[in-house]
């Protein structure tokens, strides 16, 4: 055991930027498990998820110095991770995408916690799985229209129209 274990994520990331390999190992131990689980909810093929996680931490090693030092390290890692998964999916387009069925609503934790049993939660529940998937990819995962299209296997234009339809339906439900 080394002193690294007690460091904050931000400090570890600074050390990684300075070429500290042990710091990368500790970051990996902290962040790989949830990343594996969350990516598995986007893509059911464990081999692709493993590749994406591997690419993510290699990218963390190489680009740690580009981290601005603001916000959560976990959010930064997630941003890399979901895009590496997209790269993997693009490289192997033959892999059929599992249904993107979990609904995600908003990036704000408090809002999310409030909506579960509230009106928005119910309204989201009434959306079709296709519309919910689009809301999830763009709003919660923070993907662009084009990236969301790649993840869901549909054209970017379809993502836009589905997002508009989802917004209209939610507005009807909530007003």
């Amino acid at each position, binding site marked *: 055991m080394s002193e690294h274990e007690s460091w904050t994520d931000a400090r570890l990331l600074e050390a990684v930027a300075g070429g500290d390999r042990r710091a990368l190992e500790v970051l990996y*131990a902290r962040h790989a498990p949830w990343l594996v689980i969350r990516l598995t909810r986007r893509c059911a093929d464990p081999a692709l998820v493993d590749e994406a996680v591997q690419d993510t931490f290699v990218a963390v090693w190489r680009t740690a110095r580009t981290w601005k030092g603001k916000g*959560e390290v976990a959010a930064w890692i997630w941003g890399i991770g979901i895009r590496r998964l997209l790269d993997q999916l693009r490289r192997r387009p033959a892999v059929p995408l599992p249904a993107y069925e*979990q609904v*995600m609503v908003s990036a704000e934790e408090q809002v999310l916690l409030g909506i579960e049993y509230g009106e928005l939660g119910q309204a*989201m529940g009434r959306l079709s799985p296709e519309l919910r998937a689009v809301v*999830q990819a763009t709003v919660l995962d923070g993907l662009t229209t084009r990236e969301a299209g790649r993840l869901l296997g549909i054209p970017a234009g379809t993502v836009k129209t589905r997002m508009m339809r989802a917004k209209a339906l939610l507005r009807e439900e909530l007003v």
Partner: protein
Amino acid sequence: MSTWHMDDGLAVRYADGELNPTLAASVEAHLLACDRCRSLLAPRVPRSRLDRVWAEVADAVDTPTPGPFEQLLRAIGVHDHTARLLGATHSLRLPWIAASTVALLFAALASGETTRWGLLSYLTLAPILPVAGVAVAFGRDGDPAHEIGLAAPYSMFRLMLMRAAAVLTSSSALALVMGLGLLGDDWTVAAWLLPSLALTSLTLVLSSRFDPRHCGAAVAATWLVVVVATNLREPSLAMFGGAGQAGYLAITFVSGVLLIARRREFS
């Protein structure tokens, strides 16, 4: 920071994908900001899977990134191991090449000012550069991979020739470009080519007996002495005339034959 946290049951259901979509969304948003809840998920991924992925990450991180010269060699189709062997050579590194460029540049500029002394200095300097480059390209002190090379099942003679050829090519290309660019396209701008071949091959032959650095220094010093001696009165290009060039060709040829005859002494 909120006071809401996952408990073990929730973590298990989330990891198994059993949460309803809205609750899963809440969990994921919370996870980004909460170290404690993230650590609840750690036991949900098999240790062996994490270790396997980490081994791959460590591999990728520990592999040294090849330098620009090595990448260039690979791009033009040189084998990876050959590119690595050549890339380890001091005189093929950027600082060395930059230093050679500056030296040649000054000599070339000098020849623009005064007519014959300047050209003479350029013609004198151009053959010395590959000699110096070859002298530090192998041997105990010059080669950072010397000890590894001794133990490797790879012919030292072949390695030496390969490096010498690469050094000769790069420094000749440099001198040629500089000469054509700054001195015009008179035949004299290429008159150093045979001398540099002769001096380099001479250095290689001597290296079979002595330290390559000493050989390089001795050959370069001899070259300088001869050049100075033939130019004591007035600048003359006698050493670069027809007879001289034939002599350099002969030296190169003889050295080549000796080199092949003595190739075992390099191992």
